[in-house]
């Protein structure tokens, strides 16, 4: 597991990224793609953003929309993939 400080940092960065992109504030547990939220096409931008920002590769079973539905889910995935890459 990454430290809580690292995860909090990723969380804050993602919230800032989303706010900048959508001109809307978000909370860590809000479903990005639920009614009134983002187009699901935005999910691929999130994939690209996470991969380039955190030097990870999202592939195989990780590549599914549920991993991008909330900031919390993305933070958990980034943490897991970074840990796996460091093993």
């Amino acid at each position: 597991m990454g430290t809580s400080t690292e995860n909090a940092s990723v969380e804050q960065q993602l919230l800032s990224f989303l706010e900048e992109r959508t001109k809307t504030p978000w909370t860590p547990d809000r479903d990005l793609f639920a009614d009134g939220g983002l187009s699901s096409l935005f999910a691929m931008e999130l994939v690209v953003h996470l991969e380039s920002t955190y030097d990870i590769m999202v592939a195989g079973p990780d590549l599914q929309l549920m991993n991008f539905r909330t900031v919390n889910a993305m933070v958990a995935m980034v943490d897991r993939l970074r840990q796996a890459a460091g093993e």
Partner: protein
Amino acid sequence: MTSAAHEPQDRALVVLGAGVMGVGITTLALAHGVPVTLVDTAEGVLPVARGRIREGLRMAQMMGALPKDVTTGELTEVTAPAEVDWAAGPAAVIEAITEDAELKAKVLAEVAPAVTPGTPLISNTSSIPIDELAGAIGRPEDLLGTHFMNPSYLIPTVELIRGPRTGEAALRATRELLDRLRRKVIVVNDAPGFVTSRVLHPMINDAARVVEEGTASVEDVDALMRGCLGHPTGPLRTADLIGIDNLVDSLWVLYRRTGDEGCRPCELLLSKVRDGHHGRKSGRGFYTYERAM
């Protein structure tokens, strides 16, 4: 290049043009196990297309649109129609180049003699009447139109345009191909913009005009159309997906053929094209994007 004719399920789809729509159609076909020969004569386009197809397949997987029971088809890239293995007998040829009737007619006329009669020659277009292109080939009965939406691999319905001279055999073969690609097909008659563009494109033009006149922001126009009217993405984000340059081309096609002033592209759309802000594919349109896709 020669080879024996392939079994129907192994026959490749030849896609002419590796721009946004050519890439999308190629991705859709590969995802459904159909081999594709992708042709583009412009230097440097095919390597970019290859990357976009890879991204498209990932996107399809993420959105649950990649069939799990199918092995992804094989992609062949060639830089000239003469390099296509025509002797293998492609399942169909889909022309997906720029929305320009003269160019489309020229390309179709160039490849038609190499294609076995009876093979569907399909022009993928958002607005150009199919019968305008039929004169360019010797077999107008083999010509028909498709209007795939973007991204083709995510949108399950396809508008299939039957020109006045389109034959039953071409229509049937194209329907079979689209069935294999698991698309829902709606057959419509030939007209400028057919159904979807005739209805949607003037509406997007109006949405841009509303922004131009200062009535509301881009974000608020889309939020209202999504939240109040159930539009899945909002008209201006849709414009970014279509490609604002393509949208303007299509609006001109509609305007010149119908005289409808609502189809004359507004200044905001024209300025975005002048500035190179073509939408998602250029990284900026009404919105900005993490990376051109």
